[in-house]
């Protein structure tokens, strides 16, 4: 029996879809059976970021309306057999989806997959309620920026009313040089304010943009900063304790520290 994780943020454009694609890819890379669901009906993106756009025949709404079987709606990933995508509908009416129906779909998928990662639309309206309905856990994505943090806080408040574990936080698009100059809120302050556990910090990395433009999630790259961050997040989801920040942010410093303590790297 698998586990369903919804990726939300409140504010739009902070990196939900990118996070969903990369956590999914990284989990698949580590050998898990993963299904991604795009619930952003009318503004689907996840298929583009995954490079699967051309393969879409059916979508989530077809499944909701029982026009097809759930299995028929799933698109296998180009790279991993264990990774599949249930794309959002682009044209259908989004009122087709309901929390109840969503729950049923997620329950069914949990029979076959280890992880169901649900990409949530921005906002706190019906789309959010649908996306959250079937989830056992939630990941809240925020940028190190006041308005985004405020919306994350609002979303956490709503998630706390749901029947699920306390959500975990991903700070995306961190620019360390801006923190140093005091132009950006630092991670400690964000975690302090939101008072939830930190799942990971992803640097602002142009590789992410390049990667989504060619439909190859950045997590597939062997050693870009963002890729390492996403893989670490995946390992933390699997229950490993991977030290925070050090690898993703301060590689230089860590290397020096190790030398200092006489550990060979």
């Amino acid at each position, binding site marked *: 029996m698998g586990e369903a994780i919804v990726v939300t943020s409140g504010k739009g454009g902070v990196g939900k879809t990118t996070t969903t694609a990369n956590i999914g890819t990284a989990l698949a890379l580590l050998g898990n059976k993963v299904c991604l669901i795009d619930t952003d009906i009318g503004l689907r993106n996840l298929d583009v970021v995954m490079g699967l756009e051309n393969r879409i025949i059916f979508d989530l709404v077809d499944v909701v309306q029982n026009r097809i079987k759930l299995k028929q709606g799933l698109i296998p990933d180009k790279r991993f057999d264990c990774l599949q995508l249930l794309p959002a509908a682009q044209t259908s009416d989004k009122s087709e989806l309901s929390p109840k129906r969503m729950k049923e779909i997620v329950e069914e998928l949990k029979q076959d997959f280890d992880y169901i990662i649900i990409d949530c639309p921005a906002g706190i309206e019906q789309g959010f309620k649908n996306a959250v309905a079937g989830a056992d856990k939630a990941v809240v994505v925020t940028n190190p920026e006041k308005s985004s943090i*405020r*919306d994350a*806080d*609002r979303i*956490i*408040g709503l998630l*706390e009313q749901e029947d699920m574990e306390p959500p975990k936080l991903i700070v995306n698009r961190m620019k360390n040089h801006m923190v140093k100059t005091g132009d950006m809120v630092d991670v400690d302050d964000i975690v302090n*304010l*939101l*008072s939830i556990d930190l799942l990971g910090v992803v640097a602002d990395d142009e590789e992410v943009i390049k990667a989504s433009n060619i439909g190859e999630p950045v997590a597939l790259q062997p050693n870009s900063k963002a890729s390492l961050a996403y893989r670490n997040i995946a390992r933390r989801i699997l229950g490993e304790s991977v030290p925070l920040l050090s690898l993703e942010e301060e590689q230089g410093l860590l290397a020096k520290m190790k030398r200092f303590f006489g550990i060979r790297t």
Partner: protein
Amino acid sequence: MIASKQKIAIKGTRHGLTLQLDDQCSYKEILGELDEKLSSNNQAEDDQLINVTIQLGNRYLTQEQKDALKKVIREKQHLVVDSIESNLITKEEAKEWKKHAEVKPFVKVVRSGQVINIEGDLLLIGDVNPGGKVMATGNIFIMGSLRGIAHAGVDGDEKAVISASFMKPSQLRISDSISQAPDYETDGVYMECAYLDEKVSKILMERLQDVIKKRPDLSSFERRMLNG
């Protein structure tokens, strides 16, 4: 026949007169005797008004009865009723009083878009984040950071205070007064307490210890905490 016991005892005090009314006889008897007593007691013509405090003992009077009593007294000489004291209150009044005297504890983070609104004093163990709001008819004590809005004395209690381990509110309100955070970025302050200064009618902030001196009533918080 036994001469009936006096139903009204009149005492002079520094502040005026105190009328102690017998609480065993009927209300009618009281009114009767009051009328009689005050008329017979024709004092010298002195233009000064005399304050009267009425002590009802263990008697409960409705508002109409109280008004009638006041009227009888006002009609006589230079007496004005200052206050009516009774050992009794109705169940409703007691409940109301209890509600406002209670300390309500919450353990949570009040997040953006969330509101806690209670009667009595609020004890919050957790933060109030920007966009979050806490309201109480009494005092507000926050063991955590106040970064949102706090409104104490919602029903008009100007003596109410707001205190937090860390204060960086976007807005403070006490009764009808409002104070806003400045537009520029400021550092917060630790262990401060906001109160409404009567002289300047402004919300001021001081160390909690200093505000306790200004609000001796706050010490009753301790007792209420224990009772609650």
